[in-house]
């Protein structure tokens, strides 16, 4: 289907999928980690000034 140079085509698509998948996964995991840490701090009562004002 991909002819005699199929390995080059598959390698190009494979490397691209791997790199973009890793980038998307790392962005997602970083976001989840920072949101979890913020949640822990807020649960301990540490909030931003603007959040405190809106609570009072």
């Amino acid at each position, binding site marked *: 289907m991909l002819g005699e140079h199929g390995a080059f085509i598959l*390698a*190009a698509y494979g490397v691209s999928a791997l790199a*973009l998948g890793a980038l998307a996964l790392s*962005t*997602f995991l*970083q*976001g989840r980690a920072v949101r979890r840490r913020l949640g822990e*701090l807020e649960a301990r009562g540490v909030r931003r000034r603007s959040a405190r004002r809106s609570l009072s």
Partner: protein
Amino acid sequence: MALMDLANPTRFLALSGRVLPWLAGAAVLALAIGFILAFRAPADYQQGETVKIMYIHVPFAWLAMFGYTLLALSAIGILAWRHPLADVSHKALAPIGAVFAFLCLITGSLWGRPMWGTYWVWDARLTSMLVLLLLYLGLLALRSAIEDASQAGRAVAVLTLVGFVNVPIVKFSVDWWNTLHQPASVFRMGGSTIDSSMLWPLMICALGFTLLMLALHMAAMRNEILRRRLRSLEARAAAEAAHA
């Protein structure tokens, strides 16, 4: 809502939280349609099936340059207005642009080997694209080398604007110098030289990758805003613990 009202981290978080899932969904949909059309498109009469690499290589090249242009606009925002979102945008986009530039070079090499007989030549297009990747990596290295965040932001902004001179060099290198790389065949005077059976899949793939880059940029900006909030809350928590 005025544009400046949106240029506020809290409003950006609220708005991007609503837009991001749609943007990511549209990117996946456009890429799925683009790849289906690309793999149904005819083989090129000279290059055969290796033309399939065009559907990813060309969008990566465009987006590596587009990403650097967005970085330059963010750099102006940092230097002219010292806007925090401009710095967030710059920091979030640099690694994404670097990945697109890297993929442009790798997929180009994998296309070049069967067509040119070599993975690499030091011609003006390939070399200027390599310089673009090195600029991206230099920006990442410079930011991580300076401890003070605002000083780092200004330094990378200056380097970004200096390096922007390379973007038109990448674009016009095939016109200014005699290169092994082919001249422009999509955006050129006189119209595209690519048949519509290949042009449409290419444009839809390019749209999909553009939406993907914007979605990744938006998600990374959200992460960076939250990371900065986390650092400030941790500093406050540490100060309160010291006073207690």
